[in-house]
């Protein structure tokens, strides 16, 4: 199963929290390749794709932070109009719900990071359509 791991960190929604978390990663020489921060009122969850997931989790936990790892799919898709729609349509056709999704373009490659409750089925659908689901090392080497 080619799922990638994302590091999720709980943080209170107040100034300095992101700085605190990222300082720990910086000190550990962990490289952040992708990030999102989702806030909900008094708290938020920071998510990272990093080059060394185990080390990142270990250091964050040592500093007393609440950490969890999430599994997600990284899909390489053509960087042309209509691609996201095609992905969404194909998953919708199988009744697969997208939880958190984000995308970026790097080195002329378009990458979607997809979190869903149904990773296995989503992966099968995407590969059947001819899109490549990247492993964590593949994604990190883009």
């Amino acid at each position, binding site marked *: 199963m080619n799922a990638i791991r994302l590091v999720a960190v709980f943080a209170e929604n107040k100034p300095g929290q992101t700085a605190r978390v990222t300082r720990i990663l910086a000190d550990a020489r962990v490289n952040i390749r992708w990030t999102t921060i989702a806030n909900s009122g008094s708290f938020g969850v920071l998510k990272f794709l990093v080059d060394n997931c185990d080390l990142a989790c270990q250091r964050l936990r040592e500093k007393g932070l*609440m950490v*969890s790892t999430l599994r997600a799919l990284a899909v390489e898709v053509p960087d042309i109009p209509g691609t996201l729609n095609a992905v969404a349509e194909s998953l919708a056709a199988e009744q697969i719900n997208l939880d958190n999704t984000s995308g970026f373009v790097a080195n002329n490659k378009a990458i979607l990071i997809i979190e869903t409750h149904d990773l296995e089925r989503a992966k099968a659908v995407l590969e059947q359509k001819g899109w490549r689901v990247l492993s964590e090392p593949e994604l990190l080497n883009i």
Partner: protein
Amino acid sequence: MFWDPDYETIDRSELERIQLERLQQTVRRVATRVPFYKQKLAEAGVTPDDIRSLNDLRRLPFTTNADLRDNYPNGLLAVDLDNVVRLHTSSGTTGKPKAIFFSAGDINRAADLIARCFIMTGVRKGDVFQNMMTYGLFTGALVMHYGAEKVGCLVIPAGPGNSERQLLLMRDFRTTVIHLTPSYALYFAGFLGKNGVDPKRDLALRRAFVGAEPHTEETRRKIQESLGIEVYNSYGLSEMNGPGVAFECIHKTGMHLWEDHYLMEIVDPQTGEPLPEGATGELVLTTLTREAMPLLRYRTRDVTSVIPGKCPCGRTHRRINRITGRTDDMLIVRGVNIYPQQIERVLMSMPSLGHNYLITLSGLDEMTVKVELAETAFDGSVEHLVQLQNQIVEKLRAEILVKPKVELVQSGTLPVSEGKAKRVVDQRVL
């Protein structure tokens, strides 16, 4: 097994005879030796000779917290200072402290009551007792210390805090009994977990005595489960010699209050009128054997009720329920009376939540409850946290009838106290 079988299982009628005799002696002593009481009794129109039955107790004046402060430092002494061997002050948070004096006999009697409590929960000579309560002016640690020595325990006067050292002592000396506040017990359980210590496997702990802070049955359950030990509730207050006023036996159905040393009443906190047995109200205590500083009808401000009926342990001293609040802890938010313990009960019943919480009142009657997440409750999903937050709000609203704001915080971030936990911060500008 009993420490003092004759007195612990005493016939109620014989107990009442002793109570009356001791009450009469106490009233006579304070009427002659303590000017404050002399005046109070005169104002109430009562003389020592008027106390002919226990029912006459209600004719006596109350003693309040404020009376103790007003008579600071030694206005309430009933013996010469030469005959006082110990001074404690109560953990008052504002203003002048309350001075509590002990004669040698007072210390001996307080220790004897602690010995009853220890034996009642199964502690024996040979047990190793690690006292994790604050030593010093606070009565909590020293009175227990003396009682534990009386039983023949090996006493480790560790004091609170420094969890690494607590663990070291516990491991090296095979501690079997600990005494600490419930908030520190919860913190310490978390500390053990973080350090990979399984108390059942790595330690010899069997029992904990928790006191000095009102707490709930849910809190007891959490401490028992996380430390794998039996937890017994302890009740006392500095004004009444500290811990050992009332204590649970192995049946854990309320705390036996030692009625040969303390006369108890439950009164309506507003009117001061005695309430019928079983009703919930303010506990009022009269010392029956105290030499240095006898107190008549002291308003403890602790809210509880007397549990009717006999305890299977055979002790005839009546039991009181766990303290459900303090009359001066009660919060009034948007016109609703709320005890912090109601909030604690809700929070502690939810496995996704940790052990620590803080209630903040601000602005115009806004209540915010900050609560720590349990380590295991975070799965990286914002949605799940939002659901949990809403669930807490709903449960709290059902319990306290006021809708609070709930903020989830990371475990280990709320202040942990080593003495009494501060659970309420009132910043209201009204």
